[in-house]
């Protein structure tokens, strides 16, 4: 273990600036400015998200805006605050690929919810929570 750390340190000393800069023995060290920039961007994006509700955007526009701001915020937090962009691919893929499987769960449950909804409407005559007789 000790031996390995020493060799990788030597490698880092030889490597050109920027390359393999990631998880050196000293850990994640980056200029402070980038954190303030991301902090500010997150504030701006959150304000935009709030304004989507405030100005009553509806339908497709609403969803497009909400999801765009959501993914941008999530991406900035994971990439910079959690230092993912400076990690090795082995770790990035191990952590970011598995959640993609959740898309399968979400789409299955979305189909299921649609089926349940129409079953309730068509066979139980429920709409607006009240049985509609005749």
């Amino acid at each position, binding site marked *: 273990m000790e031996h390995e750390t020493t060799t990788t340190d030597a490698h880092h000393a030889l490597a050109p600036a920027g390359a393999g800069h990631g998880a050196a023995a000293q850990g994640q*060290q980056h200029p402070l400015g980038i954190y303030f920039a991301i902090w500010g961007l997150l*504030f701006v994006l959150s304000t935009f998200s709030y304004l989507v509700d405030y100005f009553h955007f509806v339908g497709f526009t609403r969803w497009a805006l909400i999801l765009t701001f959501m993914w941008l915020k999530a991406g900035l*937090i*994971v990439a910079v605050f959690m230092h993912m962009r400076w990690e090795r691919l082995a770790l990035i893929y191990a952590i970011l690929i598995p959640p993609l499987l959740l898309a399968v769960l979400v789409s299955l449950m979305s189909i299921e*919810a649609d089926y349940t909804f129409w079953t309730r409407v068509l066979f139980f005559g429920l709409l607006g929570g009240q049985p509609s007789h005749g």
Partner: protein
Amino acid sequence: MSDHAAQESQGLQSLVDDWSTDQETFKRVHWGKAMMWIFLLSDTFIFSCFLTSYMTVRSSTTVPWPNPSEVFALTIAGQHIPLILIAIMTFILISSSGTMALAVNYGYRHDRRTTALLMFATALFGVTFVSMQAFEWTKLILEGVRPWQNPWGAPQFGSCFFMITGFHGLHVSIGVIYLTTIAIKVLRGDFERKGNYEVVEIAGLYWHFVDLVWVFIFAFFYLW
């Protein structure tokens, strides 16, 4: 060994090499950090289960869903402002993430005082967030929201709300205790003796994850 290090691969080849070397997969990654990432991955699945079941009940109910914009509105100085409490909570949590990111940076500079101060500030933001959540819960419970009913529409609103925000609030509370513990250790100089401040970064990962989950809750629960 040094030969291998000298010709270390880049890009996708490094991914294949790291996973097939029959040695450490996550090279030059502190074991605690790798474990924290894997824990956070499992936590992602838990929160996704909650959000997916919420999506399922919300889209399958024939009863109108209560409008979150109105439910979480507050009247401040005679002004009726929609969703304002949640917006403030969002900004507080983002700020706590900001101070935490700075704390990690100062930790690696071995600036113990600043690191501890920034971590205490983060914990304080966390306490503020949980207090506002307690206020929100109290307000809703007094208005008659229960896990099985509420005055405005689909009864599933209550169970989803208490389950999702409750579990997130629990994460924030645990995070406050976690960060305070690590901050005291930083101040005491525990990591100076080991010469290793990665513990601060690992605690930071947990805290940023709590902020990350809130991004999704904010979008799916409050803005839908």
